[in-house]
């Protein structure tokens, strides 16, 4: 919290500026703006269809906004193809877990370091000295992350056979392997039980503090968002409803109406 407050005065790490997305005649996002500051955990909430995932997909460049801009450290990301987002320090996880099911845990996490390394097919085929050096530094990094997330026991297991909760941790490990500045988490609590959600909350906070990351948390689970986010943005029908501290947003009459419906309905 203190970190986030200190950073408030400086320029934002990520700025979403007046972003609109239109699919055919449907307005999925309508002029949404907010800033993310270094060290923050920003919670993005809203009922189903509010535009959370659309916004998320704009950030990972799967969708192109119809208007508006998204700036990472002052530079627009909108001209970058999806595979060139990781290299500027934006890492992500997926809503339904999108691992590489036939690869081991270790290899999944190694792929996470792809954007941090370079190679070409000829050097790789010949296993040149510089390739071996780069591989061993990747392995070191991967082992450190696996230890951090307590995944060492399953390092060589193929991920498709692992329990869902473990797979989610592997996905987090894979995202961490690129040392992102911003971690985008798409509904990390989905499919977890009550206890696991609180463990996850602790973990996200720990990652932010230990690894100096900024986290964008898109989440349905209100309890999780309210307990770990520094700042909350609420969306509904593609528009920003409210923004502020968890307490402010929770007390906002528009947010309450969006979630519970108004009396006269």
């Amino acid at each position: 919290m203190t970190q986030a407050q200190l950073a408030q005065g400086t320029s934002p790490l990520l700025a979403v500026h007046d972003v609109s997305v239109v699919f055919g005649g449907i307005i999925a996002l309508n002029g949404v703006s907010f800033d993310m500051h270094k060290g923050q955990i920003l919670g993005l909430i809203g009922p189903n269809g509010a535009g959370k995932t659309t916004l998320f997909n704009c950030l990972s460049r799967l969708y192109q906004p119809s208007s508006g801009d998204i700036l990472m450290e002052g530079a627009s990301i909108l001209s970058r193809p999806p595979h060139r987002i990781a290299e500027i320090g934006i890492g992500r996880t997926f809503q339904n877990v999108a691992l590489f099911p036939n690869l081991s845990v270790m290899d999944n996490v190694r792929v996470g370091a792809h954007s941090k390394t370079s190679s070409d097919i000829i050097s790789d085929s010949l296993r040149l000295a510089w390739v071996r050096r780069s591989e061993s530094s990747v392995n070191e990094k991967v082992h450190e992350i696996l230890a951090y997330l307590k995944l060492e026991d399953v390092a060589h297991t193929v991920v498709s056979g692992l329990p869902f909760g473990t797979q989610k941790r592997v996905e987090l490990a894979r995202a961490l392997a690129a040392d992102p500045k911003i971690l985008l988490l798409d509904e990390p609590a989905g499919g977890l039980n009550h206890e696991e959600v609180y463990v996850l909350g602790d973990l996200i906070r720990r990652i932010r503090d230990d690894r100096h990351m900024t986290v964008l948390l898109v989440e349905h689970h209100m309890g999780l968002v309210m307990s770990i986010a520094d700042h909350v943005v609420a969306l509904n029908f593609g528009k920003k409803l409210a923004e502020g501290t968890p307490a402010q947003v929770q007390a906002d009459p528009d947010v309450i109406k969006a979630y519970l419906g108004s009396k006269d309905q």
Partner: protein
Amino acid sequence: MSTAEDVVTEAPAIEAVPKRAMTLGTGTSVVVLLLLLAVPLFAKNFIIFQLTQLLYLGLAVLALNILTGGSGQFSLGQSAFYAVGAYVTAVMMEAFNINYVLCLPIAGVLCFGFGFLFGQPALRLSGVYLALATFALATAMPQLLKLNFLEHWTGGVQGLVVTKPDAPFGLPMSQDMWLYYFTLAIVLAIYIFSVNLLRSRSGRAFMAIRDNEIAASAMGVNVALYKTLAFGVSAGITGVAGGLSAIAVQFVAPDSFTITLSIQLFLGMVVGGVGWLPGSIVGAAFIIFVPNIAEGISKGLSGAVFGVLLFFVIYLVPHGARQVAIMGQQLVGRLKKN
């Protein structure tokens, strides 16, 4: 808040093996290598020729394995790359008198380029649609080789006879035996490079694309680049295999490179185990020897017998030679325990 629980749906598109299980153990490798080195010393020239055939067809199956088992892309167009490799080698040897040792890398590089370029339009296709597009390539190739304006070099419908090279440095070896060891050296080198490649950052990128394109892209993998690279690598290796076949068979003709060859290679890959590189040689053995066995059982119904044998293999060991190897390993493990 109660929301619908996320349902995990997993659809492993293609059966694949984890990286550690991609190769043979050191002990097995040494035994296989010694066998490959020693057998020709005790065999007749015809058998040696068949073993050479086994090696270069195994190489072509390995190339398809990198493409399908590695990057998850189907191809029924391998015969086209194989034909280009064979023709480039044959034409360079006969029309331009270039040494066969130099012809093979040139054929490989040209086929890499051809495969890489073909991979560009193929980027928009996947699964059965990609199989169809590559099928079109395989169907077109024999006729392209018969074109009139190329006839001066290719010999048109007649094909082209290739001179068999002698053993160099006055080595006391028959031509067949020399060609066998020459082929073995090239195939081994490419096998080692391929294993290295699939174990590297590039190979992981291939497999990441095979398993989940969107996630691979989010990790910074340039999906289009690696897909076309996989096509290029596969085509390049297939081209070298084709070149070796031209030298070994001493003849190239358009109708040796029809879609049937592509289907045989595909069959070899499945029988050997998709994604398991050592299986390539087993797959090649299947496509060379099983038709002969079928003919031995019944001359008139050899096709039907082959079909039945193939059916049994697919039914009993759907993951091919790789599955047999795993079962063997488990058996040895159990015996050791007792």
